[in-house]
């Protein structure tokens, strides 16, 4: 018989249609307008960004929508050094959990405008928006977060949001 087969291709392909839902749609609509919104839980009073219909900890219907600043501080972060399939960013790059002013839950996004080795907890950052005419209801409207130059936020101001 001929040679055995050594390698086979087993591609996986899943086609989804993702429904944003009411809260995420409102969030993305605000993003297209150049602002962040969250919702506050009537029980624990925390502001979640992005907003969602129910509080994940209290399991109650979320309360009022609240505006959230497009700036805040870096809480935890990671420096990506290892290339991977589908990678678009140049290495190394930094992905951080950013606690926006007015929010209780950090928002994940890229950090640029600073060397990876200089990123630190408490670094004050702000969103870098696409020009208004180019913004759409997608997170791609916020390119990344960059340092504001303000003094670092004190640890006490974000230690309960890690």
């Amino acid at each position, binding site marked *: *018989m*001929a*040679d*055995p*087969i*050594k*390698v*086979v*291709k*087993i*591609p*996986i*392909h*899943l*086609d*989804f*249609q*993702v*429904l*944003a839902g*009411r809260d*995420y*749609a*409102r969030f*993305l609509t605000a993003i297209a307008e150049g602002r962040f919104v969250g919702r506050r839980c009537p029980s624990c009073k925390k502001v979640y960004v992005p907003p969602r219909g129910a509080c994940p900890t209290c399991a109650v219907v979320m309360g009022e929508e609240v505006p959230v600043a497009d700036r805040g501080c870096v809480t935890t972060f990671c420096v990506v050094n290892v290339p991977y*399939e589908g990678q678009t960013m140049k290495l190394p790059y930094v992905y951080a959990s950013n606690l926006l002013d007015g929010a209780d839950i950090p928002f994940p996004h890229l950090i640029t405008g600073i060397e990876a080795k200089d990123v630190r907890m408490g670094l004050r950052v702000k969103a870098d928006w696409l020009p208004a005419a180019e913004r*759409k*209801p*997608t*997170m791609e409207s916020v390119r990344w977060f960059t340092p504001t130059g303000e003094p670092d936020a004190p640890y006490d101001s974000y230690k309960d949001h890690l």
Partner: protein
Amino acid sequence: MKHVLVGAMGTEMIAPYVLEYTYRRSVGPVLGRFLAALREARVEGARTHSGKVIVPPTEYDPDSGEAVADMVEVGQVGVVTAWAWMGEPMRNQPLDKPFAWALVKLDGADTAMLHAVDAGSPERMASGMRVRIRWRQQREGSIRDIECFEPEAA
């Protein structure tokens, strides 16, 4: 994620999202031989030390854990042991018209293998019916070298 604004109120947002992995995997000597045989329009199974023939072959006897003894050729016709009708085929499935998923125990094998049966309608499917392999014209050493099974009577 691209966005599309739909819905009567203009508030629903739906976006397509494709999750894709272009996996390649090494198959090892047993599956490598099974797939090479498919390319030659033959089916081989693994025979265990207890004499059981497993199709598609495994490297180890699932009952004892021992390595299998050797590979043997099995028949090209077999019996449907179970089946389920696929009325609306999805992309990349064996056939693009309605078909039956079936477990087929080929003559000489002690286990059944999963494939598709081009029966035409669910009324023509029955456990116990005999089906034979329809080979693909161009074969490359893949389970898809078997295009599907068809009723032996056809």
